[in-house]
């Protein structure tokens, strides 16, 4: 089901844990299947000095979390902001198509953690923790139905192949 790289990161996840005095925390949850990911950042000189994660989810969700921490560690904030979910999937040498939709939330959690850090610096307080609402695609990325794996057009609310409503998650 999963390739060797994914299984390696699932079995031996890197940077697991909590940073007690974190400078930024990002949390994402997928209402569709219930995966949850939290990323903790320690920032020094505008660089990610330390990064840790906690994840509730399937094999790919754990592997994605592990990989995003490996990619982001040591990067400048400017560089880290460029990291996308697609980069994570690529570094893992691919994920099952339906899991691209479902579990590939690592970059989202990272971006929220950076946002959280910058908000704190700017003295911005938000009434609710910011959460990513909709599934987004980087340009040129194909999109698949999370239920039946069929390639679908971006923005549609109904999968013709399996008759599933995609309103909530697409």
């Amino acid at each position: 089901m999963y390739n060797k790289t994914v299984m390696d990161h699932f079995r031996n996840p890197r940077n697991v844990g909590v940073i007690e005095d974190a400078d930024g925390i990002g949390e994402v949850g997928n209402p569709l299947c219930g995966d949850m990911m939290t990323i903790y950042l320690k920032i020094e000189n505008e660089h990610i000095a330390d990064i840790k994660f906690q994840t509730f989810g399937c094999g790919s969700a754990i592997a994605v979390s592990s990989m995003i921490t490996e990619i982001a560690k040591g990067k400048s904030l400017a560089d880290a902001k460029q990291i996308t979910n697609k980069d994570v999937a690529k570094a893992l040498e691919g994920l099952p198509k339906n899991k691209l939709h479902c579990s590939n939330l690592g970059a989202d959690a990272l971006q929220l953690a950076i946002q959280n850090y910058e908000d704190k610096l700017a003295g911005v307080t938000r009434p609710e923790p910011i959460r990513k609402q909709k599934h987004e695609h980087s340009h040129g990325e194909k999109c698949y139905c999370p239920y039946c794996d069929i390639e679908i057009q971006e923005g549609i609310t109904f999968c013709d192949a399996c008759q599933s409503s995609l309103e909530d998650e697409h």
Partner: protein
Amino acid sequence: MKVINLDHISAKPLLPEVKAVMITAIEKDYHNPSSQHKSGEDAAGALQTAREAMAGLLNCKTPKEIVFTSGGTESVNHAIKGVALANEDKGKHIITSNIEHNAVIRSLRRLKSNGFAVTSLPVDAGGRVNPQDVAEAITKDTILVSIMHSNNETGTIQPIEEIGKITREKKVIFHSDAVDSVGVVPMDVQQLGVDLLSFAANTFYGPAGVGGLYIRRGTRIFPLLDGGVQENNKRAGAENLIGIIGTGKAAELALRHMDKRLMHLKALKDHLLNELPSHIDEYIINTHPAYSLPNLMSISIKYIEGESVMLMLDDDNIAVSTRSACATGSLRASHVLLSLGLSHADAQGTLVISFGIDNSKEDVDVFLKALKNVVTTLRDISPLYQKKADKLGS
């Protein structure tokens, strides 16, 4: 490498005796049972022996009440669509439950788009349908009640006999999907009061790809497959004779060894239930404590996700099944678990442990030890577990 199979609900091994009769059947090169020459009659004789064994397992009035099919799914489709098409002049209302297998749900969905009305009944917190609800749901348009015998995810057994009394009194056809029960627990179609009963051979260590439908004599039903006159005109197409011969042998052995197997399986399940609390905490048992299959147990382990548990146990050479949304392919939380009132998060941590006669008490011990480690590992990285700890600490 020895793998401990605790996923018998997905696949059971063929019994050596079943394998042996199937190999003999292959070597015999049977002719077509429908042919009237000597070779054909030979094949028809083997088919009849298997049918009699199957009828014996279910206590049918005559072996003619058994129709062999390609498995549980075909049987269910045949029962539901066959009754609907043959009785639509009488009415177009069907009653079912919220926890049926997809073969039932999707057959009914198909009928719904063709003008049939379906009432789907809830289950109580224990996962059982209330027979009184069935009685109250029956109208003059009701032509069929379809309620499963045991649930494939929880193992909980439904009050089929009580429902059978109601459907008989109201003269409504009653089908029960007994795919996970036939050959595992004693089954008497007379006592249950069902008109149709679906079964699958692999459930009792016969070959996958063979199953059947019990059709009470006099039940109005159309074939699902039209063509030749095989299976007493109820299922066209040349029979899967090798598979059916294996099924007959498996049925004969299931009946003969029923008590012994029940005792063995029940001991394993009791052992697991007794030992579980000293290995892990914070879990929910989804299986009914009194009315359930002896070989199946569904456990929802809090704060962790089932696919991860399954993959880690797989590393330890232990095969289990999970009902986590992430692992089902559909990516949806199980409708059965949600019907029991489980939250999405708790449903995510659901394992289905299913024993077979090839399991031993030592297998359960190995599993428990491995499970303890896996649960600790995954809770250590779970934000839900962290939140719970923070809550307790504050």
